[in-house]
């Protein structure tokens, strides 16, 4: 795919208590539409914004984590445009001097340069009724989102494949979660706009894609679409497109013959904020551990291989937190990692759940591992049990009680198998070791493959020995 150039803009809703310029809660859990609003975020005449300093600090954390330069002062501008999602018909954003500039994030072997990180307010949420943005019957506006603090992270057009973009987003998400600036469990969102051009052609923007898989899909579609146009010798036009996740295609929203003119002015309601060296260094000092550092620590502290550590940390910050908490309660880091990687993650993914919103808890998960370790249940049975556990959150012990097949009376099964296979018993007694293997297989079948072969072996030898003594 020579000549593909992709750059992205990521909008991250910041994990602040209140919105960027008013005191309404940022937490959108269980909120009715237009419940978390006030004269400021509704843009009422006479209202004025007051900056939430915490949002700036979270923005600084992002900048520092991405190796950016932090500006020594910051101010806001008004970006004017008429669209029903914008209560004031201008967005308070940063224009000339962003909070942070010139950073990078490495994806695989590729250094993706970060052009800027800036703070701005989120517009309201539009609900397109009876269709999508291109053909809705009418539109409903929910101002709960209006004024939520956003960090916009803009890359240089350094990506050459959609896959790279996906990886970058995975890494970035983990960084944002580790920084404590983003919390998806509060229904915060991460939205992505992507710009893509082929062989130096016109740049096409695909706007407001949710979900990293969709970003990759949208870009793959664009590459096919634009290549197709080139083959047919149709000029790719500069335009803004919208990704339709039902058809996995992009649709044209508007042609852009010229740069949009937002008529930026300095926002005269908000004074310049000095960012002192002391302020930056206090943020630096209190920076949480970043994913890369954590991977190294996991390798050292828990003797994990780098791949396992990376999966645990980059899949979801909460998963890594869960892992560490388990290790504190169950001192076999490798076992914890195996069970999480091989079975827990699979069950969560199957339910498309993230651990923080799931019913899985450290206590009950450790209980499961303990049951396996002391032989109360077999590994094979545990693998079945874990699905039900992830579904219900009921403790493994309780699940065993509930399930009749939980506790197998191995001795009874063995006794029955020996009675039914007298011939094999005789063969064993006459010295044929293969007969033991046959009997073991019978017992296994009789327990629906739930019993541990090791335990079956022990039970067989015990009963066979007893019958010899008889």
């Amino acid at each position, binding site marked *: 795919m020579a000549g593909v150039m992709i750059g992205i803009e990521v909008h991250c809703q910041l994990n602040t208590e209140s919105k960027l310029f008013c005191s309404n809660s940022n937490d959108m859990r269980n909120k009715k539409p237009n419940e978390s609003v006030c004269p400021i975020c509704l*843009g009422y*005449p006479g209202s004025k*914004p007051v900056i939430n300093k915490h949002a700036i600090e979270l923005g600084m954390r992002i900048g520092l984590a991405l190796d950016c330069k932090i500006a020594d002062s910051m101010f806001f501008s008004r970006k004017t445009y008429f669209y029903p999602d914008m209560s004031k*018909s201008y967005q308070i954003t940063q224009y000339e001097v962003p909070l942070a500039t010139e950073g990078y994030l490495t994806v695989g072997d590729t250094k993706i340069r970060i052009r800027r990180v800036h703070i701005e307010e989120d517009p309201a949420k539009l609900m397109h009724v009876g269709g999508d943005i291109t053909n809705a019957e009418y539109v409903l506006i929910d101002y709960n989102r209006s004024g939520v603090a956003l960090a916009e992270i803009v890359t240089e057009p350094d990506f050459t494949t959609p896959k790279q973009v996906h990886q970058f987003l995975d890494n970035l998400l983990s960084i944002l979660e580790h920084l404590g600036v983003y919390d998806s469990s509060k229904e915060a969102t991460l939205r992505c706009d992507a710009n893509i051009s082929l062989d130096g052609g016109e740049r096409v923007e695909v706007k407001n894609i949710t979900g990293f898989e969709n970003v990759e899909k949208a870009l793959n579609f664009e590459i096919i679409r634009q290549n197709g146009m080139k083959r047919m010798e149709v000029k790719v036009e500069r335009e803004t497109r919208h990704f339709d996740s039902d058809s996995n295609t992009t649709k044209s929203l508007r042609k852009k013959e010229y740069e949009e003119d937002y008529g930026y002015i300095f926002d*005269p309601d908000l004074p310049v904020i000095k960012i002192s060296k002391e302020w930056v260094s206090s943020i630096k000092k209190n920076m949480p551990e970043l994913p890369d550092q954590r991977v190294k620590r996991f390798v050292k502290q828990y003797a994990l291989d780098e791949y396992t550590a990376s999966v645990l940390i980059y899949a979801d910050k909460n998963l890594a937190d869960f892992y560490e908490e388990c290790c504190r309660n169950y001192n076999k880091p490798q076992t914890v990692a195996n069970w999480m990687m091989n079975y827990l993650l699979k069950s969560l993914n199957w339910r498309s759940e993230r651990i923080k919103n799931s019913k899985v808890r450290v206590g009950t998960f450790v209980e499961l591992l303990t049951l396996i370790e002391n032989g109360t249940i077999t590994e094979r049975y545990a693998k079945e049990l874990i699905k039900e556990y992830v579904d219900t959150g009921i403790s493994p012990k309780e699940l065993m009680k509930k399930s009749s097949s939980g506790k197998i009376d191995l001795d009874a099964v063995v006794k029955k198998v020996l009675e039914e296979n007298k011939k094999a018993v005789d063969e064993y007694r006459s010295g044929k070791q293969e007969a033991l293997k046959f009997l073991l297989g019978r017992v296994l079948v009789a327990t629906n493959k739930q019993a541990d072969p090791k335990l079956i072996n022990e039970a067989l030898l015990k009963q066979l020995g007893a019958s010899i003594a008889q």
Partner: protein
Amino acid sequence: MVPLIQSLVKKHLERLAAEDVNLDDFAPKVIEKAKALQERFSPFITINEKLASENMPRHVMKLPFSVKDNICTRGIRTTAGSKILEPYVPPFDATCIHQIKNAGGFVVGKTMMDEFGFGTFATNCAYGAPKNPIDPTRVCGGSSGGAACVAAAAEFPHIAIAQSTGGSITAPAAFTGTVGITPTYGRVSRWGLIDYANSMDRIGAIGKCVYDAALGLSIISGYDPMDSTSLNAPKTDYTALLGSEIKHLRVGVPVEYFGADVDESIKRNALDMIKGLESFGVTWEEVSLPSTKYAISAYYLIAMSEASTNLAKFCGLRYGMEGPLDGNYEQYFAQLRGKYFGEEAKRRIILGTYARMSGYRDAYYLKALKVRAKIIGEFRKAFGRVGVIATPSMPIIAPRFDEVKKLTPVENYAMDRMTVPSNLAGLPTISVPSGTSSGMPTGIQFIGNYEQEGTLVAVAGACEQV
């Protein structure tokens, strides 16, 4: 010492202290008087008639205030002089309204103004124009015309809360023979003020005399965390500074403000007043503010740029006028704005949008900001030599309505040349009567250094005794 001009407000406060006011019918009577004023001069957009019938305890309604209609009053319609906000009743009070209520004040009514403050004569209002109480064929000046009109004509104790962006307190005060204080930018919270140009908008007070205006400012000033540009300074009782010594005060007289473009009698009245202050031990000297000639251009570019963004929110959604839900969003709001914005508002939106468009932004908006910085620098330099700067308040006396009609927009804007520089700089000013010309009042404006409202009150108080 000559006694201070009798203040109705001061007398009323003394009577209140002596429990000599019948508060049971005081407020309703004031409302009746306001209605009579409305008949004669139409200074109000809305009279707070509800007040008379409200179940408010009368004893808390002690001092009447009129409030310019771009200041939000909870439960009282607030239009900013525009048709587009005709049905708008704010759900909250401006900070200054809180302060007035806490001080025992009440709102008599909302005063007439040019739409969103866009005017010098209070003739660009969707609801009419206030008539000058001294000569009703003449304008009151703007944009706080209604405020000055009530201050001049009220026969009851009253303070007018006014607001200035480019001279909207000084101009009507000068035209009506009243006193107008425009405080340092940030002294009075802008929370609840419907924005014209946020970097210059200031709420102030107009009264019959210096005492009234100074009391008004004392009540409404103070730090407010709801306004990010609020000045973090302690509250001051400016009335206490009336009559304080100004013996060593040096008054700067800027040559640029006494040119051929100012009426002779107005210049003479101002200079006579300055000479009259010599008896208080005041000295004066000429100063120069050479960038004054660029102030009008810089002011209108900045003010219109900011205004055009402020007015973008009026789209017929959430509040204000609505229209039939036809067509798409763009068609809807374009039709609505076309119908309900006045001509001057449209002119300023178009010019302001133009001045900040990419390609013109550097040449207009950003250049104007540079001129502004230069003007501020010149003022700072002047205040190194003098304590206050004295200028004529307005270059002309209040014109007749028919004269205003003949003015082109550019001639109209040029009328602000005495007031715009200090508004660009955010410096406090006070306008006091300096005499008369052709039977109409003239005003002298004192510009003070930042946070020096006290000095302005003292020197203006002295003027009342000259």
